[in-house]
């Protein structure tokens, strides 16, 4: 699913990396526990989180995620956005709550692709 489709489905606002909305992701992970995110390793993935701090960006970077979506309208500060920009990660914020945001993406075809192995 392309990031521009995710933006539309979640009614999200792009906070940085808007030039990369043609990027595609193949799986997604929704969590506020960064070690759970680190236990989720898939190529070209998306992170949905309600946690707002620089470690969210560092975590996404370690597992080469393409995009972070902050749920419940949370907007990270400029330091976090600068870090994401530097690491080449697209950042969006969406008004949906975590459950709804995950459900919308899942029902539109973006699966976790965990296969029970993670």
């Amino acid at each position, binding site marked *: 699913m392309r990031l521009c489709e995710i933006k539309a489905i979640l009614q999200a606002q792009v906070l940085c990396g808007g030039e990369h909305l043609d990027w595609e992701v193949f799986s997604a992970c929704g969590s506020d526990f*960064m070690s759970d995110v680190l236990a989720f*390793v898939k190529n070209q993935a998306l992170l949905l989180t309600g946690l707002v701090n620089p*470690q969210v960006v560092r975590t996404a970077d370690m597992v080469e995620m393409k995009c972070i979506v902050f749920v419940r309208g949370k907007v990270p500060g400029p330091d976090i956005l600068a870090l994401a920009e530097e690491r080449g990660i697209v950042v969006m914020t969406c008004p949906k709550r975590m459950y709804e945001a995950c459900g919308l993406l899942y029902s539109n075809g973006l699966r976790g692709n965990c296969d029970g192995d993670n």
Partner: protein
Amino acid sequence: METIKLVYPVEGGDLIEAGEASSKMKLTLKKLGLPQDVIRRASICMYEGEINMVIHADGGQAEVEVAPDQIVIRMRDTGPGIPDVAQAMQEGFSTAGQTARELGFGAGMGLPNMKRYSDEMAIDTEVGKGTTVTVKINIA
């Protein structure tokens, strides 16, 4: 390719900034042209180790050896040591404080994740002296 040795100091105290050493190592591994999967596994292990060092030991040092067939990462600290390694290896067990939890860590997944993504892992620890966690990641 000869074995390359890298040393990264890990600053203690500032959990918000933790992860810089792992980022630097990841960039170096990318420049060396290693496979993406290997880079990712090494990065996760080092990052979890780095976070642990900052939470529990006020920093330390990461030594990374990149050989043609294997990456060895040694995370050395002079912190309080781990009294019960088996307990520390259990998913969900954590002694991390509130600050770590607020940042999304301290869920008791650090060492288990390091084991999950490495091919070999060893913990050498002595209470009151410190801990060295060594992980090996095969390149082939």
